[in-house]
């Protein structure tokens, strides 16, 4: 892939995106690099084995019809990051936990054009990430609780499906057999956890759309269980924003890469 985009000899770089990077729609198209092809090729890599690229690709793929010099520079940086991490892959380990562990996170109003927030989630199973996602939310969130709540909705949907999948293969006596209990999802926003468990409507949350209350149902029917974790331990953090190298590497390692 790097060869195809003339980046085989580029200098590697530590993180896929610059911290605080804002990319906007460009008026003049810059065809220095086949932008769409690069997004497409990187996306395949991301979907297969590279959850660490999901935020960068999610962000840059919004500009396939209006890319300019800045966007091209950003995608080049992603390619440079790939150059420095070519041997990275998911490592599943026998000695790791065989219980599905979810992480759900959101940034708040990270997209400066629409002020929408980004959902990020990942599920770790057997030592490495098996499922992940990074997606711009569909509506504007008025508070961080709301953004986290919307993210949690997506994570819960995925948790329910993953649980079904794992359960259907797991039989008694296997290490991967689960008792059928709820899937644990870690969230770094205690307000969001409280709101998910306690259906109190008040001024700041009364407008949240019904579809997101899927979370509450998933909790009351014992499909998921929420647990608080510190922001520093939030493995899904790199799915919601650009991080510095130290943090990025730490979370990426936790994903089994």
């Amino acid at each position, binding site marked *: 892939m*790097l060869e195809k985009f003339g980046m085989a000899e580029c200098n590697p770089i530590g993180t896929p995106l610059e911290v605080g990077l804002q990319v906007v729609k460009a008026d003049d198209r810059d065809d220095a690099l086949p932008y769409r092809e690069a997004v497409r090729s990187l996306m395949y890599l991301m979907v297969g084995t590279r959850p660490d690229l999901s935020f960068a690709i999610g962000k840059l793929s919004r500009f396939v019809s209006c890319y300019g010099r800045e966007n091209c520079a950003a995608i080049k940086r992603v390619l440079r990051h790939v150059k420095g991490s070519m041997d990275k892959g998911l490592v599943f380990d026998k000695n790791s936990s065989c219980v599905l562990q979810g992480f759900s996170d959101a940034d708040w109003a990270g997209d400066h054009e629409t002020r929408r927030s980004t959902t990020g989630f990942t599920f770790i*199973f057997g030592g490495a990430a098996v499922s992940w996602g990074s997606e711009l939310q569909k509506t504007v969130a008025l508070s961080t609780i709301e953004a986290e709540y919307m993210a949690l909705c997506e994570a819960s949907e995925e948790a329910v499906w993953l649980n*079904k*999948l794992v359960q259907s293969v797991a*039989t008694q006596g296997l290490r*991967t057999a689960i008792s059928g209990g709820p899937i644990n999802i870690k969230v770094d926003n205690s307000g969001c956890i409280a709101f998910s468990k306690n259906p109190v409507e008040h001024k700041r949350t009364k407008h949240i759309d019904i579809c997101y209350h899927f979370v509450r149902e998933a909790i009351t029917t014992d499909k998921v269980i929420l647990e608080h974790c510190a922001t520093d331990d939030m493995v899904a953090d790199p799915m919601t924003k650009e991080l510095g190298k130290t943090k990025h590497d730490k979370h990426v390692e936790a994903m089994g890469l």
Partner: protein
Amino acid sequence: MTDRPASRRVLKVKWVYKVKNDVHENGNRTTRHEARLCFLGNRQIKGLDFNETVAPVVKFTTIRCILAMTVANGWELHQMDVKTAFLIGDIDDEVFMEQRDGHVHATYPDKVCRLLQALYGLKQAPNTWYAKLDDFLKSQGFDNIDPDACLYLLMDDGEIIIVLVYVDDPPLVASSLAAIYKIKDTIHERFEMNDLGEAKVILGPEIRRYKALGTLKMSQGKYAA
């Protein structure tokens, strides 16, 4: 062979040639010449020449979950490859084909062929192959589990056997080597296939297994380069 249908389009076929350079494990290189008869599926009309074209493939997430379980439970992971899978499916729709250039029947040069089996390039080829494999696996007692239509599961005498359907090279997972050989034999009896041994590549990503350490690495280094 049949008479030319009055109100239907009769489609053509063409030969597609390919030179394949294989690098073997021992470093030897061989060149194979491949010739495939391809149907010009781009001229097929929906509702007449084809209806259903959907052929599901296994999800990446499912594969990763199964890999995690394979490692955790010390299962075996093998790979095989069904030969010319797209020629196997049966065609229910009426599709007509011109006689091939150079192979026109001496007595009936005006007749056309009606396809009974699939060809490369035919729109319904992937779908009919999937249907064929689905039928076969179900006849062997496999269950098609609900979360992923391409995960086939069989519990046989305490052994777990999993077939992940991905077009023509399904990865096989089983709780013992004996079970792997058994399922391979079963599939082999029905379809012509290549046994690729322990899986090294699954739908693109490379698989490296370190059994002594109990780890498995799934990466795309070759693709990224």
